[in-house]
């Protein structure tokens, strides 16, 4: 602290307080514990196996949505290929479980290799896949490989100030190419049919495991975004040029949060594969990514609870309504995209939070205007080269 002459400012110093939200507010902890108890106790009071499987699935969806919220909601990077990381995590675990399953459950022709390998003329598990026989190794891969892929992607793009729409389009293509690969090399991936028929873990114990991981991730997300790092991330999402001229290596921050997010997506995929017992190329596709973006948007991006709420609401509605509504459900989903962009910009949680925060201060109209302006400011970046974006015209 260099001695700038502030003496007069110090002498008349009144008591000043910052309004800071605690990192883990009590109501959130109690509420979170309540939700965990409610979901975790389902196997003991509910008898509906379908509901049970849905709960586990939804938790994985919530973690996946959280991973999108971290990059999109807090840092302003929209990835349409987030499912790549989810899918890679899911495939590693599914392949491992399948390989082990076939050891004890030979196929119809007596082979001890997965059926999709047999159909494609393989007689033994290829050597490069053999290490996946070990489930712990597969789990490590499911967590590490997505993170490394994200690191690679980040180094290639963010270091060159490529983000915004360009990033969205490139991640979209990345995701489609992975799908192509899975379909083309079906001898190793199960192709169109995906990987199925293996012993998955459904039940109270594994539900608690998923619950625990989910809780840890959401707590991590909260701590991460409410630390100094979180403030820096928000400031980068807000005005990356200012942040860069304030000495922050913007690219490194983007890469870091992208890797954390990929790690969470990989973990979500791994748990999903173990719980559901079916992984297909659809779980790595852009459609799935964008769907998850919408869960986040509905729940409230830039909030930690938002992705959870959004995933449960939208997916819940899908499971209960899509049967009866048939095609009209799709139209409803399409409309939801438009609705969250045009009307419900801060999502359910964000809108409620704004309302609570401003209840005493201003009218609904002001709240709406402010939300409008915030959303407006949040995303001005579509140009590939960001460093000079807000920079004034030089002469």
């Amino acid at each position: 602290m260099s001695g700038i002459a502030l003496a007069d400012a110090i002498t008349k110093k009144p008591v000043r307080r910052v309004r800071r939200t605690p990192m883990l507010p009590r109501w959130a902890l109690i509420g979170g514990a309540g939700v965990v108890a409610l979901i975790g106790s389902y196997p003991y009071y509910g008898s509906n196996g379908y509901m049970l499987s849905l709960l586990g699935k939804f938790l994985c969806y919530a973690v996946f949505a959280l991973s999108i919220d971290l990059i999109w909601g807090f840092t302003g990077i929209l990835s349409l290929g987030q499912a790549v990381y989810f899918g890679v995590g899911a495939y590693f675990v599914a392949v491992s479980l399948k390989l082990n399953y076939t050891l004890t459950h030979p196929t119809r022709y007596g082979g001890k290799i997965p059926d999709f390998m047999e159909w494609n003329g393989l007689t033994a598990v290829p050597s490069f896949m053999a290490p996946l026989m070990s489930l712990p190794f597969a789990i490590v891969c499911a967590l590490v490989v997505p993170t490394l892929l994200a690191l690679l992607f980040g180094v290639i793009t963010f270091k060159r100030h490529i983000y915004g729409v360009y990033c969205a389009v490139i991640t979209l293509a990345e995701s489609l190419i992975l799908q192509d690969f899975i379909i083309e090399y079906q001898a190793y991936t199960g192709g169109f049919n995906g990987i199925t028929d293996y012993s998955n873990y459904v039940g109270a114990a594994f539900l608690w495991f998923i619950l625990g991981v989910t809780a840890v991730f959401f707590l991590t997300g909260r701590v991460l975004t409410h630390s100094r790092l979180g403030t820096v991330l928000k400031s980068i999402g807000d005005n990356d040029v200012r942040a860069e001229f304030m000495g922050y290596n913007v690219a490194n921050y983007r890469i870091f949060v992208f890797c954390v997010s990929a790690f969470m997506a990989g973990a979500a995929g791994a748990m999903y594969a173990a719980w559901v017992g079916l992984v297909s190329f659809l779980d790595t596709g852009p459609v799935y990514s964008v769907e998850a973006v919408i869960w986040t948007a509905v729940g409230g991006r830039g909030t930690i609870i938002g992705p959870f709420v959004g995933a449960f609401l939208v997916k819940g509605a899908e499971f209960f309504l899509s049967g009866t509504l048939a095609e009209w459900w799709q139209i409803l989903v399409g409309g939801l995209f438009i609705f969250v962009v045009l009307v419900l910009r801060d999502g359910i949680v964000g809108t409620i939070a704004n309302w609570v925060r401003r209840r005493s201060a201003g009218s609904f109209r002001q709240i709406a205007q402010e939300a409008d302006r915030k959303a407006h400011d949040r995303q001005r970046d579509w140009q590939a080269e960001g460093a000079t974006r807000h920079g004034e015209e030089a002469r």
Partner: protein
Amino acid sequence: MTQSIITQFLSGFSVVAILIIAALGLAIIFGVAGVINMAHGEFIMVGAYTAAVVGKLGGNTLVAIPVAFVTVGLLGLLIERGIVQWIYDRPLETLLATWGVGIILQTVTKLIFGPELYYVGSPKFLAGGFRVIGRLPFPWYRLFLVIVAILLLALVFHVIFKTNLGLEVRAVRRNRAIAGCLGIDTARVDMAVFVFGSGLAGIAGAVLAPIKSVSTAMGFPYAVDSFMVLVLGGVGNLWGVAAGAGLIGEAETVLSFIFNNVIGRLLVFLFIVVTIRLVPKGIFGYYERR
């Protein structure tokens, strides 16, 4: 081997033409208004269904082209006025909203036309083909596509560089704020560009219908290819579209022949990523004067 690669290279011209046709509409919308229209593929799809209907009524591709232009142009007008005009300044959210539009268009089309595939024949006078070196048959219709691509490029050049609208478009592209201050109604320019771009997507659908079975999901791959063309070629310059389409089309055809489709696509993707790592705004990217 070498000779086969050369024939592949020649047949790649039609792939390039298809890419140019598909990407032009997206290019001018993205280039001027700065938004990615995720429903672009569905606009192409609607154009193709229009061609299918025209075909049922006895018309051929030449009739379908103007009809599709008008139909999809009107559709674009509806969507621009209803949704996109409010969110031009938030491109990432425009992307999400137009994705939603895409879903709705696919579903509505499925509700109207049913899930079955439609086939549209090419015009009678374009039936058959000729042989190029290496005895590879080259259908007349593919040559027709090449000609259409050239004509469309010329049309867009004419509109952008020879008409009043084009002048305003270029002004808005250069400096939106100043253009607005000088009395150009930038909102109207955006609208006109969006409608024109949508119409071009309609034309793309109409001429692509005969080489592809018409289904509700047919558009999306074209849209993705178009995005790649723009990313590689650069935004805001029509030569970029031609260059991007040329490189991607030829590389994909030749590489897919040497390896296989998937490896070909992967290599092209890596090529694109490496290129924009070197020149982030694409080959013909528009660099502001600073």
